[in-house]
C-alpha cells in the first residue's frame, strides 16, 4: 500500500468530496448497483453454501464461471449501460467547479496517483533513469510535492528503473504480454511477464486479447488473464481493456468484469497507442464495475485511466468522477491511477500557479 497522498505542509486538508461538491442524486439508470442476475443464479445453482449468498470468494467466482456458457450468461446478464445517461452524467460531473483549496489537494492527489509513463521505441536506460529521478522528486525545488505512484516502462528497461528507484516508494510497472497489440501466443506472453517480474517489476500492465473478446471467446480471455495472474506472482496486475477498440459501453462493462474475475488488481482503460484512449464515460463505466465487483466479492479492485490525459483540468475531472461514482475509498493510489507523461508538468505548473499566483513558464520544468 502506498503512502496516503496530499500530506504536504499545507495546513488542514480539504477533501474534494466535501458535501457541497458531492451532494448530487445519482442517476438511477446509470449507477444503480449491478444486480448480478447471472451470478446470483449461478451461486444458487451450485449450492456452495456461502453465508453471504451473493458474495462468493474470488477464487470461487473464477471456478463458477469456468464453463464458457456460464461465463457468457454472467457477462451478458450484466445490465446494459445507458449510453446517453452515462455520457450525460460524465459531462455533468465534468462541469463541476473546484475551488482553490480543493484544487491544491486534487493536484497533489493526482501527482501521487500518477504512473509516469514512457513507452516509446526510442526509450533508453538513460531516459528511464532521468524519468525515475523526476518520479521520485517531481519538482526538485519543492520537496512538498509528493512522489508519483509508479514508473511505467517496457520490461527490458526494468533493471535500469530498479537502480534509479532504489530506496524510494515509487513502484516499477512494466507493460507485458506483447504490449500494445497483445498479438502473440500465450507462451510468449507469459515469458514476457516472467521476464518483467524476475527483473523486479512490482506491477504488471497486461493487455487483453481484444480479438478474442470481440469474437465472443470470453473463456480464452479469462484463461489468459488467469495465467498472467499466476505468472506475475505477487506483482500488482493491471489489465488493459483497450476500450477504444471495444466499441460499446456494454463491452467495456463485460471486459471489466472478465478482467476482475480473472484476478486483476486494476482494470486499465487503454494502452495509449489507440485513439480514442481514455474518456470520462468509459472511466465512469469501469469505476461502476470496480465498485460493484468490490461490493459483491469483498476484493477491492482499482481503476487506471491512461492515454490522452494531458491537463490538470482533465485529471481533476477524473477525480470528481472517481469520488462520485466509486466513492472516496477510490481516491487513493492503491485504487486509482492515472497513466500519463506530459500531465505531470501541467500539474506542477498549476500547482505553482496556485501557490505563487504567477503563471509558470513552459521551460520551468524538465521534459522528463
Amino acid at each position, binding site marked *: 500500500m502506498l503512502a496516503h497522498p496530499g500530506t504536504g505542509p499545507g495546513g488542514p486538508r480539504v477533501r474534494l468530496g466535501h458535501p457541497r461538491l458531492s451532494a448530487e442524486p445519482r442517476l438511477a439508470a446509470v449507477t444503480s448497483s449491478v444486480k448480478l442476475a447471472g451470478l446470483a443464479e449461478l451461486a444458487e445453482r451450485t449450492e456452495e453454501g456461502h453465508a453471504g449468498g451473493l458474495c462468493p470468494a474470488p477464487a470461487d467466482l473464477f471456478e463458477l464461471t469456468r464453463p464458457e456458457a456460464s461465463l457468457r450468461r454472467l457477462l451478458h446478464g450484466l445490465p446494459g449501460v445507458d449510453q446517453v445517461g452515462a455520457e450525460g452524467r460524465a459531462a455533468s460531473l465534468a462541469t463541476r467547479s473546484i475551488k482553490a483549496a480543493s484544487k491544491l489537494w486534487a493536484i497533489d492527489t493526482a501527482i501521487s496517483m500518477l504512473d509516469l509513463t514512457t513507452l516509446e521505441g526510442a526509450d533508453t536506460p538513460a531516459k528511464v533513469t532521468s524519468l525515475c529521478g523526476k518520479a521520485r522528486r517531481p519538482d526538485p525545488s519543492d520537496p512538498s510535492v509528493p512522489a508519483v505512484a509508479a514508473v511505467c516502462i517496457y520490461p527490458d528497461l526494468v533493471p535500469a528503473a530498479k537502480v534509479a528507484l532504489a530506496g524510494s516508494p515509487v513502484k516499477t510497472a512494466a507493460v507485458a504480454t506483447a504490449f500494445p497489440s497483445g498479438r502473440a501466443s500465450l507462451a510468449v506472453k507469459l515469458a514476457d511477464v516472467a521476464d518483467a517480474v524476475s527483473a523486479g517489476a512490482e506491477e504488471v500492465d497486461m493487455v487483453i486479447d481484444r480479438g478474442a473478446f470481440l469474437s465472443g471467446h470470453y473463456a480464452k480471455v479469462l484463461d489468459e488473464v488467469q495465467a498472467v495472474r499466476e505468472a506475475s506472482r505477487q506483482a500488482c496486475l493491471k489489465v488493459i481493456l483497450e476500450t477504444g477498440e471495444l466499441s460499446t459501453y456494454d463491452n467495456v462493462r463485460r471486459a471489466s468484469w472478465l478482467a476482475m474475475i480473472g484476478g486483476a488488481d486494476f482494470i486499465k482503460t487503454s494502452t495509449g497507442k489507440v485513439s480514442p484512449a481514455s474518456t470520462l464515460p468509459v472511466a465512469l463505466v469501469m469505476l461502476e464495475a470496480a465498485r460493484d465487483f468490490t461490493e459483491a466479492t469483498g476484493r477491492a479492485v482499482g481503476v487506471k485511466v491512461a492515454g490522452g490525459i494531458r491537463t490538470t483540468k482533465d485529471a481533476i475531472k477524473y477525480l470528481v468522477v472517481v469520488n462520485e461514482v466509486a466513492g472516496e475509498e477510490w481516491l487513493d493510489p492503491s485504487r486509482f491511477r492515472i497513466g500519463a507523461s506530459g500531465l505531470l508538468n501541467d500539474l506542477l505548473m498549476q500547482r505553482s500557479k496556485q501557490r505563487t*499566483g*504567477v*503563471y*509558470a*513558464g*513552459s521551460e*520551468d520544468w524538465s521534459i522528463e
Partner: protein
Amino acid sequence: MAEGRLGVRKTYKLYIGGAFPRSESGRSYEVKGAGGEFLANVALGSRKDLRDAVVAARKAQPAWAKATAYLRGQVLYRAAEMMEGRRGQLALAVAAAEGVGSGDAASGVDTAVDRMVWYAGWSDKLAQVAGGTNPVAGPYFNFSIPEPTGVVGILAPESSSLVGLVSVLAPVIVSGNAAVVVASEARPTPAVELAEVLATSDLPGGVVNILTGRTAELAPVLAAHRDVEALDLAGAPEALEVDLEVAAAGNVKRVLRRRKPEPDWAAQPGPERMLHFLETKTVWHPMGL
C-alpha cells in the same frame, strides 16, 4: 438600411490562437464613442483568457520564427493588402472610436497600411542591420545573427487605436516573435477589426493574439507571466508602470518602457522597436589553420 430591415449588430470578441472566442468569463463591457455615445459591447477579457493567449502564442512562435524571413515579409504584406481592402470599415471604426472626421480617419488608415508595408520590407533586412561578422583575434570566423526573443506581451497605445496598434505590433512579429496584445481599453473596436484582417492574412493562428478588457486587470498578469519573454509598455497606465517592471523582472523579461511624452505614432518610425525584441546569437566557427 432598407426600410423595415432588422439591424445586424456585431459581436466584438477576443482573438486567441486564430479563433474569435468570447471571454471565458462571459463578461463584456460598454465602449463609448468620443462623444460619450454608446458604441459597442466588447469582450472583457480575464486573466484566464490571457493565459490561453500565452499558450497559443507559445505554441505558434517556433514555427513562425522558423519561417523564412521572405515568407514573414510576404505575410505582413498580405495583411497590408487585406487592410487596404477593408479601408472603409477600418476608417469607420477609427472615426467612431477616436472621434475624428472621416478624412482624418481615412488618412490614419492609410498610415497604418503603409506602416505594415514598411515593416514587412524589413523582414529580410533585419539580419544585416542587427547582425554581421565580427573581427576576432584568432583563427575563427565569428558572426552574430539576430533571433526573435519569443513571446512578447504588448500593452497597445491607449489613444491611437489603429496606427498606434500597428506601430507596436508589426515590429514585434516581423522578426519571428509571437505577440499577446492588450488593446486600448477605451478604444478597442479598431483592434478587433484588425484582428479580423489578420485572421484572413495567412498569418498562422496564435502569432498574434488580441485581448480587449481592463488594462489594469490584465497587465499585471501579463507582466508576471513566466512564459512571456518581453514586455512592451507602450500603453501602460502611468500608475502601474513601476509595478509592471518589477513583475516583469521575475523571469528577466526584456521591457520596452513607455515613451514620455507619448510619441506621434503617425511619424515615420526607426528600427528601434524591432531591434528591442531580438536576441543576438554569436557563433565562433573554427577556421582551418
